[in-house]
């Protein structure tokens, strides 16, 4: 067994790297949540189900249409994002003027329905989805064997996270978006189609979840309950980062992945709760989250 001090530095590097990989999933998922919350004020509990949908759409593309992983990486987010747009148009937009709680209940209910349908249809054991040839194999880093598929996860999510942050914080489109959430009436008066902007934002947040789902498909099993397990942790990540903070969700996503990775080495039994312990402490000390603005 490993002792606290007896752990060789090389093993530690390995664990840190793995933590970073898990953090990548947290980052992409919590980013989607943060975008939706920050700009729409909706607590999107369907996020886990949409992540699962991403993985399932990738699986369906491969098994029904013969479309492989790389195209799925592009197509699945688009398809699931469009489903999100339909959802926003049909249900969610009716709740903007109500309390957060209504949005939470609605999206939670939708998540249960979507997950239930997939459980009924595909069972809970999961479906095999093999990694494309380009992602099989791995690098021997000396201290560990890093599968190409995992290295790709870090790279892909880092690109997506940076891209999203850049668009929202540094471009004109992002400025419109931020303005539209501050004062929709005024922005509308300038001739900008605010409802369209908001619908598109929801679709984009959902597409991020689906993107993470496709990334997960070859690594974890494609499974109707894959999102159920993850969504609660991701919510904790968002709360720690500060609800609605784009940069906060990215940094806490990666950071908590690291913390969780270390817990798996030193006290594996606690790895499922460590994120929540941190959340409790952060809420006590800084209720708005690490990167959130005080209200």
């Amino acid at each position, binding site marked *: 067994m490993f002792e606290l001090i007896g752990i060789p530095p090389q093993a530690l590097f390995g664990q840190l790297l793995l933590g970073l*990989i898990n953090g990548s999933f947290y980052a992409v998922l919590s980013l989607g949540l943060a975008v939706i919350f920050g700009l729409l004020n909706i607590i999107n509990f369907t996020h886990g189900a949409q992540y699962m949908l991403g993985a399932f759409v990738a699986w369906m593309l491969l098994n029904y249409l013969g479309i492989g992983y790389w195209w799925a990486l592009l197509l699945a987010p688009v398809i699931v994002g469009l489903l999100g747009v339909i959802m926003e148009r049909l249900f969610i937009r009716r709740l903007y003027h109500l309390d957060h709680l209504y949005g939470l209940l609605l999206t939670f209910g939708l998540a249960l329905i979507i997950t239930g349908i997939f459980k009924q249809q595909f069972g809970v054991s999961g479906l*095999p989805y*093999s990694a494309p040839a380009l992602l099989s194999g791995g690098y021997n880093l000396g201290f560990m064997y890093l*599968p190409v598929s*995992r290295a790709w996860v870090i790279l892909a999510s880092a690109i997506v996270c940076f891209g999203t942050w850049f668009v929202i914080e540094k471009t004109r489109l992002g400025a419109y978006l931020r303005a539209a959430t501050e004062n929709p009436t005024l922005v509308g008066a300038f001739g900008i189609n605010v409802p369209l902007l908001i619908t598109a934002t929801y679709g984009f947040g959902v597409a991020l979840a689906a993107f993470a789902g496709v990334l997960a498909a070859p690594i974890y099993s494609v499974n109707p309950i894959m999102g159920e397990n993850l969504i609660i942790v991701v919510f904790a990540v968002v709360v720690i980062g500060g609800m609605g903070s784009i940069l906060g969700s990215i940094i806490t996503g990666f950071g908590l992945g690291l913390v969780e990775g270390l817990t798996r080495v030193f006290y594996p039994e606690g790895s499922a709760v460590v994120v929540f312990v941190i959340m409790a402490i952060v809420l006590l000390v800084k209720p708005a989250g690490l990167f959130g603005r005080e209200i």
Partner: protein
Amino acid sequence: MKLAKALLATAAIAAMAVPALAETDVKIGVLNDRSGLYADLAGEGSVVAARMAVEDFDAASKDIAVEILSADHQNKPDVGSNIARQWIDTDEVDVIVDVPTSSVALAVNEVVREKDKVFLASGPATSDLTGKACSPNTIHWTYDTYSLANGTGKAMVEQGGDTWFFLTADYAFGHALERDTAAVVEASGGKVLGNVRHPLSSSDFSSFLLQAQSSGAKVIGLANAGGDTVNSIKQAAEFGIVQAGQSLAGLLIFSTDVAALGLETAQGLVLTNAFLADRNEDTAAFSARFKEKHGKNPTMVQAGVYSAVLHYLKGVEAVGSDDADAVLEWMKANPSNDPIFGEATIRKDGRHMHDMYLLQVKSPDESAGEEDYFKLLATIPAEEAFRSIEDGECEMAKQ
């Protein structure tokens, strides 16, 4: 006076007539995971199996009215024992069947003992059900952690895998499976180098696998089940663990897990199971009928539910009532006989004694098609497959 006599006589006749006319009402409660990670290996399939047993027994023509209830225990001991209590207290359920997830089964075991009903445990694995926690009301039907450990553990050590590291699900089942396997490994001359315990329903196993890898053990024993096992095996392949020379021992693998992994990833795994669909004509015929109703072959848990319910109903018929003690006595005194296990007996500690099978997952080339997953390596006779009463810490059986 005359009138009173006449009334009394009528009442007496009526009273005598009752037992001959009335049916025995039997209520069977199938309690298992219907929505979580064990829902495919038990779930609705177990209800289908129970219903098949009732049909095959032809209860209707024997004046036994059978009703089957089912519920989802969500893998939570408190939920499971509440349902069991409610079923027995208000719904008058006579027998609770299946109950995968050892922690839930141990809780239900106590409720059924307290209420003096019958518990036919097909789903749970922990060998404590016939050990420390043994109960006169419980029959552990299909498999247990000892038999899994004994089959797979021994076979791996014999093949040269004499140093072990365990990846263990952190609850009653994982602990029991690890304990029983470690005992077998050590008894066969092997050594256990360490373990790591992961939370139930984890999705990422890479850290745990890396710890297993750096232990240098020849065998990584997976003391987990369902989705956890699937993810462990999938990610072990991803991290090149098997290629680098360590082998995986999946201690509890169901046919549904192999389907989820795909033969490409699962091939070569050695496992112990109580049921092999194509073992003989009887099992094949049963599997085909089950598949017609449920869409896929039965797992050993579902097949076990069929066998257990069938034997229970035979007991009710023989005894002529649903009195728990009488039926249990009959069940233990008479061998069960069905297409699943053939003829098998029930031991004093509540262990249903039947052969177990050491199987290996076929390669994609060997597989003849859909659901043809396993080849039979060895049949482990019942006496060898299960722990002896003497080693079981079951006080009841030693008296």
